[in-house]
């Protein structure tokens, strides 16, 4: 199919070593009293079995995806070769444009439920560590995520080049799934996706919902208005707005597809049935559910109220802040 190696295959031993190093680091920090509970065996098992299953699912569909890419490539606008010494700039351009395609795919994966049904697996862990990076979809082919790379083949980048760059992109994204690294140097944070930026992406705090879709270059989020910096002012909660509450990896892999099927079955009318597949996650025909947009807007409104209340303290003697909770019994 292609003479180029798969970067992911070569990176697997490094993935394992880095995970073990992170476990050691988390344990050391916990011993010093941080008690982060950064790893949990059941959660790690779910992540890794989902990762293994994803590799098998990918191997089953790779031939078809590659054949489709080759077919599209025959209509290419430019004739670009794999030869690195002559086409090195095309390799660089391919990597950058592939990352842009990834950004568009990833943003869609959070805004269109059909794509989300596949991508939700990656967000289903309430932990954020290197094993979370390997919690990957089993149903990528079904959700048609590969369509987002087709423009690259039409431009003229050879399928082997694009898939190699996509592999590098995936390898890059492994190390950003960690709480072990705080911030990188300022210049790096400005251009590249980092653990700090990607923690925001995995957070369920209203401030951070549906932000930072970047793969390698965070500049896409800054360009297209989806960037949110990590503030450090609030504890990050990872996972889903409505966590699945189970370590069952089959449920993690298929729960959103089952949810779509149920909603489509019960929806009144064809428009509602279609919308349950193509509208944003959380959309419902009667408005009874919450989308990330409604959650964020309500949070913003509440922040506005609090800000107003705080500001009014300077001119009045007292302010009503949220009730301090009484102890239970």
């Amino acid at each position, binding site marked *: 199919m292609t003479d180029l190696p798969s970067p992911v295959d070569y990176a697997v031993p490094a993935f394992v070593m880095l995970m073990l190093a992170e476990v050691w680091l988390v344990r050391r920090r916990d011993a010093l009293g941080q008690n982060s509970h950064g790893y949990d065996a059941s959660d790690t098992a779910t992540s890794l079995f989902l*990762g293994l299953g994803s590799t098998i699912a990918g191997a089953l569909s790779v031939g078809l995806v590659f054949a489709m890419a080759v077919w599209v490539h025959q209509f290419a606008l430019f004739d670009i070769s794999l030869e690195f010494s002559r086409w090195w700039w095309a390799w660089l351009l391919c990597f950058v444009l592939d990352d842009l395609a990834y950004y568009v795919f990833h943003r869609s994966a959070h805004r269109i439920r059909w794509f989300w049904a596949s991508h939700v697996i990656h967000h289903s862990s309430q932990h954020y560590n290197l094993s979370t990076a390997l919690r990957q979809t089993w149903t990528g082919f079904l959700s048609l995520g590969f369509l987002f790379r087709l423009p690259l083949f039409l431009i003229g980048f050879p399928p082997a080049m694009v898939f190699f760059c996509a592999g590098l992109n995936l390898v890059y994204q492994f190390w950003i799934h960690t709480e072990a690294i705080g911030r990188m140097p300022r210049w790096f944070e400005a251009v590249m996706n980092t653990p700090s930026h990607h923690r925001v992406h995995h957070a369920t705090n209203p401030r951070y919902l549906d932000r930072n879709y970047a793969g390698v270059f965070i500049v896409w989020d800054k360009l297209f208005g989806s960037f949110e910096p990590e503030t450090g002012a609030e504890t990050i909660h990872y996972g889903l707005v409505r966590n699945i509450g189970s370590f069952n990896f089959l449920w993690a892999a298929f729960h959103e597809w089952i949810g779509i099927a149920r909603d489509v079955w019960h929806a009144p009318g064809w428009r509602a049935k279609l919308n349950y597949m193509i509208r944003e996650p959380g959309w419902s025909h009667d408005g009874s559910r919450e989308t990330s947009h409604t959650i964020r807007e309500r949070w913003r409104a509440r922040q506005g109220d609090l800000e107003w209340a705080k500001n009014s303290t300077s001119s009045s003697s007292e302010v009503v802040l949220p009730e301090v909770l009484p102890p239970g019994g």
Partner: protein
Amino acid sequence: MDWLTLIASLLAVLLVIGVVRAAMPGRARIVDPQEAAHLANDMVSDFATRDAVVCERGGSALCIGAEGDAVVLKRLGSRYAARRLKPPFVTEPTGERGLRIASGERFFGKVELDFADTDARDRWAARLMDTA
């Protein structure tokens, strides 16, 4: 992917799980109702806890909200999973001190609340019904 790669990957997966199991034996434990309330408020959008109780040595908690709703927290490894429940609440007493609350979802399951004594259990069960 060939069989050798698959077997090697499976062994690597088992190795990492084994190391994590050995190195990270701790489980999550909610210390007091205040912590349960903070968790519920943070994890469930627009939920405001009015009162909370921690059960089963920190393994689960019940938070009663301001709008006739409630949040149950159940331990999931070293984290908690939360579900907002709205009336009618489906509960059943279990044993001397237990109260089982249905989440309405098969995979989230029922949340077992283990109270200090029968009186506390009955008091909170009544409170839950009054809230609704």
